[in-house]
């Protein structure tokens, strides 16, 4: 490209475009063949060129920071361990004109209708096979065709309500469908997150431009979900396979965004054909499920028996039409790659509706003529499994032929196709268009494809005006996968007229449904919140013990000093006397706390999650460094401030829901139990010298004690302030009272019925603490108090959590 020819380009624009090389044979999204900028890009590129590299990197960092804070990340799997990686946002959007987008939309809507008709047939009369339009083996030997779903009709009209397509543009400017994404058209939530991040990167541009907003699409889809639920007042839930899934963050995000219950298989039971969610208030009927678990894993009783992420009996509820799904279970069969070889002809000949936008040319090698064509044209082909449902651009097993001239390989491929052709498809290797990414201060052209989303709204299919582009890491069109360094770009649809600005950040919710949905608390979520509270509190207690221990070592005590030996034996579970073992006593619970929190990230504020992550990171930091003994008190105090900050966040920022109550109960019961243990061992007559001061220090009540008693600490004064005080948030009684109030507010406890086991036990304990004199509270009694507290936790668990 010769920039000199384009007179109207400004100096900064020329610099920006200097290294932007058009690739021969590729069409470029931004530049015309003569090097001029396409009109739809003009305004944005001008904006970009007026920003200095320094300004740009600051803005990009702002977008990245947003994504990190929001917990948007992806999981990379390296040899069985999964690592969370930063979300690879390309900060340059892909621009589409409204006219182009409308053209694409028409093609995709037609395809969506075709897929609905096809899947209706595949799980119904099978006319496509009977009439010879589809080879029977594509179903008969296809693991994605779920036999138990044959004949099962959706509770409402349609099999499909949300679809996604990956499309790419060829050298002649035509768009092609590369992949149909049906089963779990994931990443719609990521499209929102990308957009929010981009609006942080280019705030001024975005506010003034006519870029279509995404919020309207999601509002309409939310409305659709509530329509699908029909007249029943059952729950609407998104079924996820849990935090191990690479898209879990998106599951949690979209559930929260649309006000749906996020559930996992174990949250669901089926009773009398009715699917129910197990909540802290007992089972609640479920009316609509947005299934994000692979279809074959949904019900271990009738589908894959090895699945531990499904709900046993789910298919029964579907068969009885007491449960509806956003996309019917089994519709994943439409993703079968070999279907692409037949869809254009089926559209043309069977449904008499030729496709406006075709999929990339595909040949199924189960037929001789097609097989010979693939073999003869192997240098232009990608070869892959006929039954693969992995999106083409993410499938590392595809393209075993490529343009390899090796005669031996060619012979082997021919043999393979002749022997088991029905298991393979050849697909034309499309030369994808390029789009700019920003690398090392300049724009670079990279191959890309676009993922667009379609929702079936009240008045038919609607295409999200925007989407999610995947940009290759290099010139290679195969390096799209994020695992291989591919990046993700926001797709901007630019209108020539001002657009409606639906805010994304504050989704408007119809009042009728916003509350009912988020209020039901699945037992599993409650259990995780309860344990999150307990783990964090356990970590805090152990941090305090750790700090007190090493403060004394710093003051000249040794591990054999009676007080320290007494601490280890009675308060620190006989831990080995070294920093590694001792720091594991708070590092471990913090890790477990983070695990619990990550299982309920839809119910836990992003701020809380961030605070917890930071806390775990600091604790790991202490763990990994060889701390000098004298550094310990200072380092630990920092950690303690962080953990106190976390507890503050829980109490200051969380909505007073049942979820918060379980979290708070976990904190209170753990703290009360730990304090009972401390007092039992440090106030007894056999406690070593210095035990009383230690108790006050662990109880963080030195100042309170001084202000109330202004005398030397005695077992009695300490028992009063840390045991039976009703105003000290470090005292046993304070937390038992709080636990009693929380338990009284839990579902099933109101309305003057007979007290539940947990309510009865906590009231007895509170009464004991309120009526027993300080002198009567012996060590034995305190240990009994500790056991009573664990009994309360057990009773809670039985009543609400299992």
């Amino acid at each position, binding site marked *: 490209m010769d920039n000199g020819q384009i007179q109207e380009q400004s100096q900064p624009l020329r610099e920006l475009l200097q290294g932007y090389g058009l690739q021969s044979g590729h069409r470029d999204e931004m530049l015309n063949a003569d090097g001029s900028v396409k009109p739809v890009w003009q305004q944005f590129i001008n904006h970009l060129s007026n920003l200095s590299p320094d300004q740009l990197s600051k803005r990009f960092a702002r977008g990245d920071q947003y994504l990190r804070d929001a917990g948007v990340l992806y999981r990379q799997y390296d040899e069985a361990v999964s690592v969370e990686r930063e979300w690879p946002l390309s900060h340059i959007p892909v621009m589409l004109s409204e006219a182009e987008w409308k053209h694409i939309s028409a093609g995709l809507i037609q395809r969506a209708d075709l897929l609905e008709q096809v899947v209706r047939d595949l799980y119904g009369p099978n006319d496509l096979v*009977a*009439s010879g339009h589809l080879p*029977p083996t594509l179903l008969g030997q296809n693991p994605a065709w779920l*036999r138990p779903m044959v004949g099962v009709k959706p509770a409402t009209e349609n099999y499909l309500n949300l679809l996604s397509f990956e499309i790419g543009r060829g050298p002649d400017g035509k768009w092609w469908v590369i992949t149909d994404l049906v089963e779990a058209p994931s990443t719609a939530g990521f499209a929102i997150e990308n957009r929010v991040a981009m609006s942080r990167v280019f705030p001024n541009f975005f506010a003034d431009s006519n870029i279509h907003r995404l919020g309207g699409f999601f509002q309409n889809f939310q409305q659709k979900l509530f329509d699908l639920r029909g007249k029943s007042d059952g729950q609407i839930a998104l079924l996820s396979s849990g935090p191990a899934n690479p898209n879990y963050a998106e599951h949690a995000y979209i559930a929260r965004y649309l006000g749906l219950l996020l559930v996992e298989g174990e949250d669901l039971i089926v*009773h009398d054909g009715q699917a129910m969610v197990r909540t802290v208030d007992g089972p609640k009927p479920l009316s609509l499920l947005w299934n994000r678990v692979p279809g074959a894993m949904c019900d271990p009783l009738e589908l894959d028996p090895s699945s531990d992420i499904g709900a046993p*009996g789910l298919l029964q509820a579907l068969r009885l039409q007491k449960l509806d799904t956003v996309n019917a279970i089994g519709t994943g069969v439409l993703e079968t790659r070999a279907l692409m070889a037949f869809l254009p002809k089926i559209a043309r000949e069977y449904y008499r509706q030729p496709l406006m936008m075709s999929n990339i040319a595909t040949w199924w090698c189960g037929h001789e003529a097609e097989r010979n064509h693939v073999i003869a044209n192997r240098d232009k082909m990608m070869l892959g499994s006929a039954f693969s449902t992995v999106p083409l651009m993410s499938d590392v097993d595809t393209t075993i032929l490529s343009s390899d001239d090796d005669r031996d390989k060619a012979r082997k491929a021919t043999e393979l196709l002749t022997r088991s052709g029905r298991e393979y498809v050849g697909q034309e290797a499309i030369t994808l268009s390029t789009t700019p990414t920003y690398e090392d201060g300049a724009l670079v052209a990279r191959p890309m494809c676009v993922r667009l989303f379609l929702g079936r709204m009240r008045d038919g299919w609607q295409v999200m005006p925007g989407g999610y582009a995947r940009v290759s890491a290099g010139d290679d069109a195969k390096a799209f996968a994020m695992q291989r360094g591919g990046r993700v770009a926001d797709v901007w649809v630019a209108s020539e007229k001002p657009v409606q600005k639906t805010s994304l950040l504050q989704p408007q919710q119809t009042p009728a449904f916003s509350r009912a949905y988020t209020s039901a608390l699945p037992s599993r979520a409650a259990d995780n919140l309860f344990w999150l509270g307990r783990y964090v509190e356990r970590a805090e207690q152990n941090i305090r013990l750790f700090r007190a221990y090493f403060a004394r070592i710093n003051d000249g005590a040794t591990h054999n000093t009676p007080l320290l030996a007494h601490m280890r034996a009675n308060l620190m579970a006989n831990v080995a006397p070294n920093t590694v073992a001792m720091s594991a006593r708070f590092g471990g619970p913090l890790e477990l706390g983070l695990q619990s929190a990550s299982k309920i990230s839809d119910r836990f504020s992003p701020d809380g999650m961030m605070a917890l992550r930071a806390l775990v990171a600091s604790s790991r930091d202490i763990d990994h460094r060889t701390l000098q003994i004298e550094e310990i008190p200072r380092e630990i105090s920092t950690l303690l401030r962080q953990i106190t900050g976390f507890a503050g966040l829980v109490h200051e920022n969380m909505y007073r829901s049942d979820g918060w109550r379980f979290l708070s109960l976990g904190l209170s019961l753990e703290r009360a139990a730990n304090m009972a243990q401390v007092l039992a061992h440090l106030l007894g007559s056999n406690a070593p010298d210095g035990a009383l001061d230690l108790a006050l220090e662990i109880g963080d009540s030195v100042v309170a004690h001084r202000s109330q008693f202004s005398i030397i600490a005695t077992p009695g004064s300490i028992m009063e302030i840390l045991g039976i005080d009703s105003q000290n948030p470090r005292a046993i009684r304070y937390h038992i009272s709080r636990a009693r109030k929380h338990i009284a507010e839990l579902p099933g406890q109101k309305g003057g019925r007979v007290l539940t086991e947990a309510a009865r036990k906590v009231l007895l304990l509170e009464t004991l603490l309120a009526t027993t004199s300080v002198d009567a509270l012996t060590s034995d009694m305190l240990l009994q108090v500790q056991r009573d507290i664990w009994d309360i936790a057990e009773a809670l668990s039985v009543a609400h959590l299992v």
Partner: protein
Amino acid sequence: MQYDIRLTISHKYAQPADNGRHMLRVLPRHTPDRQRLTAHLVEVLPDPDDRRDGVDFFGNAMTSVAHFEPHDEMIIRMACRVEMAPPGRWIDSGLGYDGLRAELAGCRDLSAASPLHFLGPSPRLQPNDDIAAFARGCAKPGESIAQNVISVGKALHDAITFDATATTVDTDPADAFRQKRGVCQDMTHIMILGLQALGIPAGYVSGFLRTLPPPGGVRLEGVDAMHAWVRAWCGAEQGWIEYDPTNATLVGTDHVVVAYGRDYSDVSPVIGHLRSSGPQINSQSVDVAPVE
């Protein structure tokens, strides 16, 4: 010929189990020309909180039961009377490999009885080169498909030793074939793979065997629990034939069919999920008595 069949399956849990749901496929099929169910009962103890009876894709009776409350034991009892039609005269249609291939190529049927479901692979059965080579070794290209089914079944019976200790319900047929030991499930799986390697549609049959032989007969292997054998498709004219590789015999009136499927996973008598922290002990007893 009529049989009274009784099956008892018990699951004992070391720790109380709850939130359980099980799918049962224990009731014999009703097949007009072959066996007729005249009375039947499937009962489960403790009394299930939820029970529903239905029919699966392949036409097998299935019962889904749920137990939400804690329990120490689940007992499944099936009792029925089955009337067996006298065996039809054995006719070999004589269809060979070329004819079979042509028929399959023209087949567009995906109903439950269609051979197209039974060409493999299936959830439990992935093609295996050793088994394929074995099957090719005993195939008789010049003879009918039916004769080939019998040849492969007989050869497998001779090659594999019945050994109830060598394998479990989860054993991969490739492993069983390598050690040349196993029970009816293994032999059935291996034979299905062998026939499929030859291009012959083959499936799994679960069922019951007459407990005591008729006077003068031999007591068959596999009478103490539910049994398994193979069905193979020999073209449209002859249809499905059944062969028991464990006993090296074509199936007659001693075999009562419970369920048809592609492999064990389609016909497991009990498949379930429950919550329990301890181990469980399963036992099964079967009695198949001719009605005098």
